[in-house]
């Protein structure tokens, strides 16, 4: 197995989870309903935990330790999709992103739990149940709000339109795509995307929302290769503010 290919996949997964977990944690204490505040925070913690699990696999492959990898790289060294780095906006945008992201994430976890690369398969199998809750949470909210008041539907629709190009950017292929597919690591981005589309369509059809016409949308690619929006570097600077006071210190 090409180790570079595995590393690239692991970075993609871990960076997505870290950045989204970080973004979602910004809601803690500011949520729209007390109980939702708590639920959203749990999922943010899960995401950070998932990234740690994948950074740990990277460390086993010779990369630096997770704290160093997460807290000292610059934006152009991150492999996350641009979707996860966008600011939280209002709750409608955060929910739509959560819905679009986690419906893809669960498919990755399902595929990876069958992976020929055993360390990934083990982690994915163990953590799959957590992502299952994230998807249940996202779908329940979209179904409820997506068929409620005009105000809510309008908000969600506009966030959906705004997020969709970035969501399609999640499926940007890596340069090792074919190798990973051939080696049975997972079925590749095309396959994830096809299944994702089926699943989000099924939810959206139960609401008054409309899926934008994907044929007319230019996906926001680049994230997987270190090209990011202007939002990522400030996020990373903020995240590492204390850590960088002394990166060798034990905090």
């Amino acid at each position, binding site marked *: 197995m090409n180790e570079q290919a595995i590393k690239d996949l692991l970075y993609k997964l871990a960076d997505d989870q870290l950045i989204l977990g970080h973004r979602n944690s*910004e809601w803690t204490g500011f949520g729209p309903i007390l109980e939702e505040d*708590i*639920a959203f925070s749990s999922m943010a913690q899960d995401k950070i935990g998932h990234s740690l699990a994948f950074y740990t696999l990277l460390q086993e492959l010779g990369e630096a330790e997770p704290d160093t990898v997460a807290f000292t790289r610059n934006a152009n060294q991150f492999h996350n999709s641009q979707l996860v780095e966008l600011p939280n906006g209002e709750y409608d945008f955060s929910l739509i992103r959560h819905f679009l992201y986690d419906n893809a994430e669960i498919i990755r976890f399902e595929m990876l739990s069958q992976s020929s690369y055993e360390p990934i398969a083990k982690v994915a199998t*163990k953590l799959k149940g957590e992502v299952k809750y994230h998807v*249940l949470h996202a779908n329940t909210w979209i179904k*409820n709000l997506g068929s409620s008041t005009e105000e809510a539907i309008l908000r969600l629709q506009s966030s959906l339109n705004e997020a969709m190009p970035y969501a399609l950017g999640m499926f940007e292929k890596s340069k090792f795509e074919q190798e990973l597919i051939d080696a049975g690591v997972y079925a590749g981005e095309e396959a994830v995307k096809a299944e994702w589309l089926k699943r989000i369509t099924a939810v959206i059809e139960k609401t008054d929302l409309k899926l934008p016409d994907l044929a007319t949308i230019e996906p926001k690619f680049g994230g997987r290769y270190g090209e990011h929006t202007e939002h990522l570097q400030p996020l990373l600077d*903020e995240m590492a503010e204390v850590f960088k006071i002394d990166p060798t210190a034990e905090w």
Partner: protein
Amino acid sequence: MSLKSLDPRVTRLNLPEGEVPAMEPKPELDQFETYEAFHQKKEGAAYTYVGPVHAPNEDVAFLFAKEQYSRRFACTGLWIVRTENVQVTPYGNDNENLYDSLQFEVPTQSSDIPEPYEIFHLKKRGKAHTHAGRVMATSYEEALQEAKQAFGEKGPIVNVWVVRSKDVLQSAEEDKDMWTTIPEKKYREAIAYKVMDKITKYKEENKPTTAQ
């Protein structure tokens, strides 16, 4: 100018600086219904009351209760009941059996088909209601009567909750994996934080020098 806070998240909220106009009273509509949650600590254990959540419907109540009541301790299942659907008896004294003081009317022959009811007992004031079991009945009243016969002998019981089984939203068997990793989340357990070594080392290195 917007408020610059020590908290970068607050700065991003773009709050107006200085005096803010008084808030309009919150409209009544903000008040959701409440749902009561019961959890199962381990396989085969009786479901126990953990507390309420505010939610617009039982699906959302489940999402909420799952994180509010089962994020920190082992759990294998969750039940949700709308508060309004729980029939509550009066509270008795500690160390007494409430069933002894309940007066039942002689049951009239009912042509209704019996349906299952869930019975919860409170054994001591201040503790939590625990699932005692299920009975078949055609009304809450009859369910209570059946419950007395089925599991009312073992006192003390200070309070009883009766719920129609069909009003209980139960977590599905195949959703158990949503809880499997909870015991591994050590970062939120006291036991993960051990600093005696560091303190001892610090004290060793910084002993006040005593005169010879």
